[in-house]
């Protein structure tokens, strides 16, 4: 009995150490379990506080909408490009939408990718969000990268560069929803798609949210 208890305690300690070393995910993957859907109770229930230098690995975004070209991007990075509105910005991955301080800070570096949502390489919904303002003259100073998103219409092309691949989407639907309709914030979709969210209408208003949905059409490696 004593031996059994000692072995059990050692087993528990090994599991805790493995979890914090990240090896737990590797073990889950090798066992055929998707680590991203394995959320231990109690580890994911509260918003994080806004840590200093949370995005220190990224350069501060330049005050232009069209910051990059296909030639100047990091091929393994994450970028959003919409030629219709002359937008080409970096995307900051896994930004917690519950932490206003954190996501506002992320806009200093680019467009936010919503934490707990999918990525372009997977079947699912990739959720992107950024600030938009009614005063277009102040848009750059306010990091309001989605200010001109209200000009995007169904049928327009959206391109995402993600970890070595170029994903081309076509806008399929534009929805106006209540800010309380949090069900739209999801990573679930039966097909690969991107949802881009900004405040409005009218653009910049906090009374409504506009969701621009686009369906994946082609995937090709970045040359």
């Amino acid at each position, binding site marked *: 009995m004593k031996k059994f208890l000692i072995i059990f305690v050692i087993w528990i300690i090994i599991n805790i150490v493995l979890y914090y070393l990240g090896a737990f995910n590797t073990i889950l993957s090798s066992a055929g379990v998707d680590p991203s859907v394995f959320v231990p109770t109690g580890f994911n229930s509260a918003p994080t506080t806004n840590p200093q230098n949370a995005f220190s690995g990224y350069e501060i975004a330049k005050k232009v909408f069209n910051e990059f070209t296909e030639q100047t991007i990091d091929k393994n990075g994450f970028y959003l490009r919409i030629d219709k509105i002359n937008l080409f910005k970096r995307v900051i991955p896994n930004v917690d939408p519950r932490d206003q301080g954190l996501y506002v800070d992320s806009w200093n570096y680019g467009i936010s990718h919503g934490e707990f949502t999918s990525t372009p390489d997977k*079947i699912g919904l990739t959720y992107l969000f950024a600030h938009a303002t009614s005063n277009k003259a102040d848009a750059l100073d306010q990091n309001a990268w989605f200010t001109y998103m209200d000009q995007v219409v169904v*049928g327009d092309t959206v391109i995402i560069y993600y970890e070595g691949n170029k994903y081309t989407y*076509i806008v*399929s*639907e534009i929805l106006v929803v209540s800010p309380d309709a949090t069900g739209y914030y999801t990573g679930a979709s*039966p*097909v690969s798609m991107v949802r881009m969210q900004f405040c409005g209408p009218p653009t910049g208003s906090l009374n409504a949210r506009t969701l621009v949905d686009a*369906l994946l*059409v082609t995937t090709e490696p970045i040359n």
Partner: protein
Amino acid sequence: MNNFLKKTSSIASLAIIAVSVPITIAVLNSGTFNFKINALLNDKPKNVVISDISGDSAYVTWETEKSVIGMVKLTGSNKIFTEKTSSSFHLIELNTLTTTTKYTFSVYSDGSIYNDNSYTVSTSNTVSNPNKTPFMIFGQVFGINGTTVQQEGLIYITVSDGKNISQKIPALLNKSGGFQVDISNLNFDYQKSVEVTLLTYYDSVKDPIQKEFTLDLSKTRQIPNIYLGDVEISVIPGVNGK
């Protein structure tokens, strides 16, 4: 006496094992427990369908009992069209074809080559416009129980606007039960409602399931969920005016 007992029990054990092996294989193979032994499954293509034929492309689809990577080779050409992953449901697009030409092809399945008189495709005289903006519609298929997604299958979609009817457009189901097709090549008014017929093959020994829906393209691109079981949901629960 002890030796006799030992001998008898050994012989009895061997007899039980000898009998149980073929019985187990027969029971598993019968599908009673929904198990399949890959080595006993057939890789021969069945239900080979050629669809969505244009002047420069066509789709070849088929099923196999065994999960394999399929290939198609045009007769008289060195070009081989190959799938990326193995499955029991197969879809290959033959592209860069020449207009108004009759092709014959072979289907490669798990290393075996299959030919049939019906393995032919005749291209039309109309080439699809490569610069046309895709118009995607999509949906999701749920299994017999209605709660889990159908992670493998082949679906044929036919769209009609009342005047014109499309060819069968094929799509494979992904691991989320999802599928999407491009209907931009149809000469439809995309701001109106269309009738969508979906024929889903989900099990190589079972009949396909057909469903029909009206889809208002001006409002949504998502086809209502397809339930392979006896589930019909035509309206979301609610009370008029509330």
